[in-house]
């Protein structure tokens, strides 16, 4: 706590961040308090962060938090033992930190991987410290308590895996198949998704509920479309047809410009970037390109439209008495003809028989 005091962070502010993080994971407020307690008591979870085929965007995203000193705050909640971009040492000293942390925290550390892992030709396309990404991953993941893939690259291959994927880049869960791997896709991933997951693990020792692609349900269960602020425009049929046209300027739905929101599972529409309200692609007039989805991001052309995954009712109401007309002139005609024909035949037959009967009255 004194460290944090030194950083000019009040207990209140700290609690606030923890509560935010807890809320982001769908945990109740008291969990945030517990997290703060645990962190304050010095039991910070050790985190080893490996970088492979990545742009470091996810790490940068983690740091782009606008409340004052929250970067340090975040670092104060976890013990970041190895992070190539942020750590002070480099070279042999950096590698030593890694080995030491692995020894000291065997079975307990959280392993976060940022970036895809190339697999072609024994993975020579990514070498850090003389070892291939594949080797490092295998070694470090063996004793990890929890494994988290941050970003689309680590989750499913991301941009390095785009066609023709010359390096054979794959996501972590293709190489680690014997342990659960939490995927937090996004390009970049939402930092609070990561934070919440890590803190839950640190405080309760459990991972959040995951969907069938290993993504935390609290962030990836719903599509952008379901929570999009421009949804009313979609439902009412108001679309931007071209960049810069009336509709685009008026902030109308970007579906026709190729927005992949209806098929993309993420919470960007709810947790905006850089903690700045309105700082996310759709609000800025740029259609979502489906960065979290392996089938869409870097695969489906930017301006192709997608199927709406779970369509919901548009604001059109049924009338009390609905219209169910079926009658057509053809059918009335045919029915009329048949009835008329039968009536006519009856009449003619009767007349004829009557006449005959009168002409030849028989007893029989």
């Amino acid at each position, binding site marked *: 706590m004194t460290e944090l005091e030194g950083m000019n962070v009040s207990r209140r502010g700290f609690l606030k961040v923890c509560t935010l993080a807890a809320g982001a994971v769908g945990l109740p407020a008291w969990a945030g308090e517990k997290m703060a307690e645990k962190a304050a008591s010095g039991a910070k979870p050790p985190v080893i962060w490996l970088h492979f085929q990545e742009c470091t965007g996810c790490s940068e995203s983690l740091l782009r938090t606008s409340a004052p000193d929250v970067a340090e705050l975040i670092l104060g909640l976890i013990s970041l033992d190895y992070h190539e971009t942020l750590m002070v040492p480099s070279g042999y000293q950096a590698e030593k930190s890694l080995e030491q942390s692995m020894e000291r925290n065997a079975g307990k550390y959280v392993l976060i991987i940022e970036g895809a892992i190339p697999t072609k030709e024994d993975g020579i396309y990514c070498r850090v410290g003389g070892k291939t990404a594949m080797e490092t991953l295998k070694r470090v993941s063996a004793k990890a308590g929890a494994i988290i893939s941050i970003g689309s690259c680590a989750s499913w291959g991301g941009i390095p895996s785009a066609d023709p994927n010359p390096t054979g880049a794959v996501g972590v869960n293709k190489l680690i198949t014997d342990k659960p791997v939490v995927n937090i896709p996004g390009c970049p991933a939402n930092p609070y998704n990561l934070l919440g997951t890590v803190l839950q693990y640190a405080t309760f020792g459990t991972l959040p509920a995951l969907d069938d692609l290993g993504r935390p349900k609290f962030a990836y269960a719903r599509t952008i479309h379901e929570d999009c602020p421009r949804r009313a425009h979609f439902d009412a049929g108001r679309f931007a047809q071209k960049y810069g046209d009336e509709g685009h300027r008026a902030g109308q739905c970007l579906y026709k410009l190729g927005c992949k929101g209806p098929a993309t599972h993420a919470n960007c529409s709810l947790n905006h970037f850089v903690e700045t309200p309105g700082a996310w692609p759709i609000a800025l007039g740029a259609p979502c390109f489906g960065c979290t989805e392996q089938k869409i991001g870097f695969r489906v052309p930017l301006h192709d439209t997608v199927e709406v995954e779970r369509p919901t009712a548009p604001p059109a109401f049924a*009338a009390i*008495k*609905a*219209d*169910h*007309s*079926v*009658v*057509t002139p*053809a*059918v*009335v005609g*045919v*029915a009329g003809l*048949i009835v008329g024909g039968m*009536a006519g035949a*009856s*009449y003619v*037959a*009767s*007349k*004829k*028989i*009557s*006449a*005959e*009967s*009168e002409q030849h*009255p*028989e*007893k*029989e």
Partner: protein
Amino acid sequence: MSGHGNPQAIGGKLFDPLMKFLLALFGVAVVVMAYRFFAGIGPVSNMSDGYAWGIWEPVNVVVFTGIGAGAYSVGLLCYLLNKGKYHPLVRPAVLLGAICYSLGGSSILIALGRYWNSYWLALPGVWNLGSVLLEVAVCVITYVSVLWIEVLPAMLEGAAKSKSTFWSGIGQTWGPRLASAMPYIIALAVVLPTMHQSSLGGLMLIAVTKVHPLWHTALLPTLGLISCLSMGYGAVVVLTTILRYAWNAKADTRLFADLSKVNGGLLFLFAILRLGDLALQGKLGYLFVPGHHVLFFVLEMALFLTPAFMFFSPKVQKNRGKLFAAALMSLWAGALWRIDAYLTAFNAGDGWEYMPSLGEIAVTVGMAAVGMAVFILVSRLFPVVTLRDSHTQTNLGAGHVGIAAGR
């Protein structure tokens, strides 16, 4: 007592042009029915959630069985009231009934959405006795079998006369056996239609909010029963008159006149009950509300009362053609009342409307056509129709089989 008549197989070419035409019409119906089984009922019909029955139930089932009530009506007179003079009319009436009811039953199978579950009808344990339709279904299915058993004596008689020893053996053995059991079967043929024809009328009892007040009444079952008897008598006169001109069948005008007086009585009774009920319930006011309901009501009344008066007119009673016309009108009357109660006076609510689709019409017409075809076929092969030329006074009557063989 006048002659019981001597029914004969008509013989003649089985597949003449008329038969071919009728079977062609049926062929069209078969195609529609096959499509129905693959694509569902919706694509071939205009039935909807508001008008769930279309014309297949009201016409194919309710009207056709009304026409087929000839077996019931004539059976009542002939067997129950012992008016033996009507015997010549019995066999054609029973065959007509068997065919009409079979058409009704098979039409139901096509109209049912989940027809494969109909085997449950055979298990009394699951019957919901509150359902009017259940009574109709069970009763009609049983009655179809009874009717065909009633047709059997004619077939056995034909078999007994056959040149093949196998068939004549069957005819001669089973004919007398069946004859002794017939009273118990005919008794069933009296009880069953009493039940289901009134239930057919009563199907619309539950649609309290949907059937127009001019038609909806607690008397629906009673009216159904009375009108089916009337339709039965009308159908017999119409049928036998047609047979006279087609095959020279015996068509005793005096017999028709006597029969039609019963019909006339029933028609008057129907009209009186109907109007009386409306008056008692204070519904006569509806007759002054302009709309198609009043038109249909007036048309119905005209169709009921005109033949009623005609049947009691001596001029009509002497003229076969006028009797035929009146009998036809009585048929139309009963049919129209049924179609009104089920369709024209049935209002599912605003926004719902119905007119039969071409597919539905094709099936109804095709069913009627195949019914006629079967009638012609059976009459040609078996002694059903009594001809005018029969001078031989034998004591063979319907229901007394095998005595001729014994001679």
